[in-house]
């Protein structure tokens, strides 16, 4: 990446973040929703941790990892919303004319998504620690956990940007959020996979979000499991949706 691409990326990210800070209506819902899910699941369902064979030491931590990955994924989706808004308002077309390297534009959105997600994750983590979350993992485990969340954020941003670049309208926002919502909730959200019943258990066996959740929970508890599989899934999805986003950018360029 040369200096000009970096300058474009920085400018796009800075604009996006300034817009967020100056518009509470854009920033508060993505901040409040993870907290709300964490409160409802970790608070309301904590007795589920006492189910025989649950096998995880702390239900608060169990739900924290789900909310962490959900926050990471929806941080990317909400950035896709902003991208769609920029296209439907015509601002993105002016950016395309002004930017010498369009890769920098995509990079700017990815960077902005990461920054906004880091802020929300920090907030949720403080709440989880106050709520008594137990952290069994060492420093390396935790770096592994948060790096995994960062990759999930990039994956979701690339997916949502691919949709935003193809449709270039806010009407496409359900196409960004519904698939992410479905993938996340067809994984072991409330209980470990072996306690899931019916069709969700069958779907969860093939759902990449299962590997991400299981690895994340293992890293938080200091008992890493399926880490290579989770990273493989995350990096594979990043490559796949990177291509999807790139082709979306080409489609947007062709559309003028």
């Amino acid at each position, binding site marked *: 990446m040369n200096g000009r691409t970096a300058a474009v990326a920085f400018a796009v990210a800075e604009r996006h973040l300034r817009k967020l800070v100056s518009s509470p209506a854009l920033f508060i819902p993505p901040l409040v929703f993870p907290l*709300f899910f964490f409160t409802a699941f970790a608070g309301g369902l*904590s007795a*589920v941790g006492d189910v*025989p064979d649950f096998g995880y030491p702390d239900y608060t931590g169990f739900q924290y990892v789900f909310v962490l990955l959900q926050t990471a994924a929806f941080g990317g989706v909400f950035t896709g919303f902003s991208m769609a808004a920029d296209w439907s308002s015509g601002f993105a077309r002016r950016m395309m004319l002004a930017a010498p390297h369009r890769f920098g534009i995509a990079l700017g959105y990815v960077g902005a998504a990461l920054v906004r997600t880091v802020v929300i994750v920090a907030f949720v983590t403080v709440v989880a620690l106050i709520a008594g979350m137990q952290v069994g993992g060492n420093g390396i485990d935790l770096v592994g956990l948060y790096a995994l969340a960062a990759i999930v954020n990039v994956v979701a941003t690339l997916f949502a940007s691919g949709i935003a670049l193809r449709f270039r309208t806010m009407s496409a926002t359900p196409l960004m959020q519904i698939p992410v919502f479905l993938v996340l909730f067809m994984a072991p959200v409330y209980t470990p996979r072996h306690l899931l019943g019916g069709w969700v258990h069958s779907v969860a066996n093939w759902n990449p979000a299962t590997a991400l959740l299981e690895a994340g929970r293992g890293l938080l508890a200091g008992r890493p499991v399926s880490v290579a599989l989770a990273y493989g899934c995350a990096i594979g999805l990043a490559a796949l949706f990177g291509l999807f986003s790139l082709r979306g950018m080409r489609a947007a360029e062709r559309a003028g």
Partner: protein
Amino acid sequence: MTLLQQVRWIAQRSVLRTIRQPAQIVPSLIFPLFLLAVNSAGLDAATKLPGFPTSNYLNFALAVCFLQAALFAVSIAGTDLADDIQTGFLNRLSLTPMRRAALLLGHLAGVMVLGLIQACLYILVGISAGADIEAGVGGALVLVVLSVLTCTGFGAIGVLAALRMGSSEAVQGLFPVMFVLLFLSSMSLPRDLIANDWFRTVATWNPVSYLVEGVRSLIITGWDGEALALGFLVSIVVLVLGIAGASASMRTRLVRT
């Protein structure tokens, strides 16, 4: 034109308008069923907790669908009326001899019909998926009545919000608030099995818990007079407060226009 005739005309418009908006209706039918499917499989293990009232989580979770339908009623009724305010339809209507009561009652007809469709669909899907309604056919009918009453009450809250705020975006913003009320209730576990004291306290003070428990009692317990009475009481209080508030706001809104 009599009051009844006026109600009929507005109700006809409201019902047709609701039915002609698949973008509003489909999510309100599909989303609760999706969550039912996911939660009944995902939380099936919770039935192994000592004291859990049923061995099939589907029976337990089915009640939540009816409350989600009521939450959708807030945004459907409210958004439709807010659109009428924004497009000036309400202003034009205020020039006619149409009575406020007719406007209000007629406007709620759309969510009443939708509530009826939703209740029947959830019962049919629930039974097809293996749920049992312990109170039998009579209980299913009471379930439909309670569900429609609750939808109408929440629809009145949506109408009240629309009249106060006059903007469909603002009414849509109420949906997450209502969603929070549902999640902070006894929707996922019985109150006596909620381990966190503060959550159990919030759920006990949250009126939505009693609506969920009223519906759930018909599915799991059979005829539980206390749970049913509390469910109907909360539902009627929501309806009365919603209609009283909406009626007062309608007076102000029509004076303003």
